[in-house]
């Protein structure tokens, strides 16, 4: 839809309003449980940003969402709706884990990291390739195929972990803990700049990998020839055809890049924190990525902001569960859902009112330079 809103409204005011509504509704839920929503809100914010530990966790979760958000965004620029980041990240985890298991014992982390990145991205890309290919060549609805692939991925990993990767005698379906080479450095030192003698934090080097990916995605989409093709495909397939852009090729590669980014997400929990591959490394980050991309308007900068917001929800929610026994950990899930609902599905709920407001304002006030065209 053509929106006549000034950028700052479109990019900040509108999401802010949607968020506010989401939080208000969440507050009502808290009230329904019989707790004080304001105190709950404070506990969450304080838990997320009030201490070095909190910040560490917030950024740790945010790292996941940056990756998945970027994954969704790249596909979106190509006019594809990739809701398979969940599965792609899980399969990417396999790649990362294998790299760490194989090399971890022999070489230091800074040699394992490139391999882990390569394999994580490759495995994720492979999982994004098929839906992309089926969409491009056989016209299968990418949304449906990616959903299906999420479940297929889960079964596959389940089988691999249970029957192949699990050390004999171990109960949990997990790989063995990696040797030192499979451990990414933590950013404890960095966090201690915020005071507090932290002994440990999950926040690790992959946070910077995520930021690097943000830059690379920006570069890809807005500064490369292929990015140009992607955007043309996404905005006008017919114009792309006219321009001689190969639709199938563009779609497939875009989906592979998307899957690759999702796959890299595994770096954070697997190599960065757990140092082993478990079945629940993704935990809905793939779906949160959709909301993150939507709220971040598919721009890396917006994605970082939105990711930190959701990171806050995750961490703050956990702290909430610590301090408000009646509120269980599931509060987070509810808030997430509401944020996705209001900031995502209902994002245009207030757009008409705002457009009316601003069009009347600018009829009275300043006329933009587009007026008097031709």
């Amino acid at each position: 839809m053509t929106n006549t809103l000034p950028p700052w409204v479109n990019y900040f005011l509108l999401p802010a309003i949607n968020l506010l509504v989401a939080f208000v509704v969440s507050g009502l839920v808290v009230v329904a449980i019989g707790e004080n929503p304001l105190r709950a809100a404070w506990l969450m914010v304080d838990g997320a940003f009030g201490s070095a530990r909190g910040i560490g966790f917030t950024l740790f979760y945010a790292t996941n969402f940056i990756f998945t958000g970027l994954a969704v965004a790249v596909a979106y620029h190509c006019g594809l709706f990739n809701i398979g980041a969940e599965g792609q990240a899980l399969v990417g985890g396999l790649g990362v884990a294998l790299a760490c298991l194989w090399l971890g014992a022999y070489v230091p982390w800074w040699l394992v990291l490139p391999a882990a990145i390569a394999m994580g991205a490759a495995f994720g890309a492979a999982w994004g390739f098929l839906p992309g290919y089926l969409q491009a060549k056989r016209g299968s609805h990418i949304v449906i195929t990616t959903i299906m692939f999420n479940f297929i991925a889960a079964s596959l990993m389940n089988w691999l972990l249970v029957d192949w990767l699990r050390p004999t005698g171990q109960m949990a379906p997990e790989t063995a803990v990696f040797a030192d080479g499979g451990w990414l450095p933590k950013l404890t030192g960095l966090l201690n700049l915020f005071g507090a003698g932290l002994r440990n934090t999950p926040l690790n080097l992959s946070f910077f990998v995520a930021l690097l990916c943000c830059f690379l995605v920006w570069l890809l989409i807005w500064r490369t020839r292929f990015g140009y093709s992607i955007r043309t495909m996404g905005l006008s397939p017919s114009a792309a055809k006219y321009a001689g852009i190969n639709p199938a090729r563009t779609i497939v590669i875009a989906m592979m890049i998307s899957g690759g980014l999702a796959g890299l997400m595994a770096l954070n929990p697997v190599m960065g924190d757990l140092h082993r591959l478990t079945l629940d490394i993704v935990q809905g980050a793939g779906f949160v990525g959709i909301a993150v991309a939507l709220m971040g308007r598919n721009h890396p900068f917006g994605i970082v902001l939105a990711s930190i917001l959701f990171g806050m929800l995750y961490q703050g929610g956990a702290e909430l569960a610590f301090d408000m026994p009646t509120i269980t950990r599931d509060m987070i899930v509810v808030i997430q859902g509401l944020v996705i609902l209001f900031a995502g599905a209902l994002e245009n709920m207030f757009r008409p009112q705002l457009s009316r407001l601003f069009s009347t304002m600018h009829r009275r006030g300043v006329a933009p330079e587009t007026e008097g065209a031709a």
Partner: protein
Amino acid sequence: EPALVYDMGGKNDKSFNEAAFNGAERYKEETGNDYRDFEVQNEQQRGQALRRFAEDGNNPIVAIGFSQQAAIEEVAQEFPDTDFAIIDSVVDQPNVRSIVFKEHEGSYLAGIMAAMASESNKVGFVGGMDIPLIRKFACGYKGGVKSFNEDAEVIENMTGTTPAAWGDPVKGGELAKSQIESGADVIFHAAGGTGIGVLQAAADAGKLGIGVDSNQNMLHPGNMLTSMIKRVDNAVFDAFTEAESGEFDTGIVALGVKEDGVGVAMDENNKDVVTPEMMEAVDAAKAKIASGELEVHDYMADSNCPY
């Protein structure tokens, strides 16, 4: 003050974690001082909870369930002067007490009762996640059954291969139903939340169920033969009190029939279905096991079941 970190099932799982919760509650009542607890939601939170409690100076910190092993391993090293305890798994650290139960012994007793209660000479076992620990339950149970009736049949099913298998009562119900339809009239579950469905199905069909971990007899009075209880509550209670009185010793603690760490629950909910003969048989077996005269096979020792 002491702290407790539950496994994913949550402290109200009517089973394993709830047993731990009960132990902590008992400590609270008897000593009057408070404790803190937390239900983990995801892998990161295991470490997060343990560290947070440690940093807040809680002592001892008890972790429920083998899934906490890796986390304890890490955190125990970071906080050498905090006492930790883990249940159902062994962590080799100077400041960790590893509490394991001889589930096979308890299951053996349950098996005896099942065999005696069964009229079809077919009894069922529904396991949760298919892991050695659960096969250990199954094996001991089988042993008990066979010990009473050599040609009784034990129908054995596992629910799944992932932690999800602990919380899928629908599947549990399905398994129980099919076991019942193929003749089983007593069903023992070692499946956490999934077991709720198993016991439900048994009750629905007017058959007998056997609970696990904590005393589940009250779930379906009259349709519960008994519950194979792991005294996780005692383990937690002891850990808390001993730490308080400064006599918290670390290392491996294996609780079996002898230590009264495992057993079968008798209360008014199942007194109508438990016959005096069963009582005798169970007590006899208990005595033998305690005296070492009877050695129930531990599946995890050699990953196979002779019965």
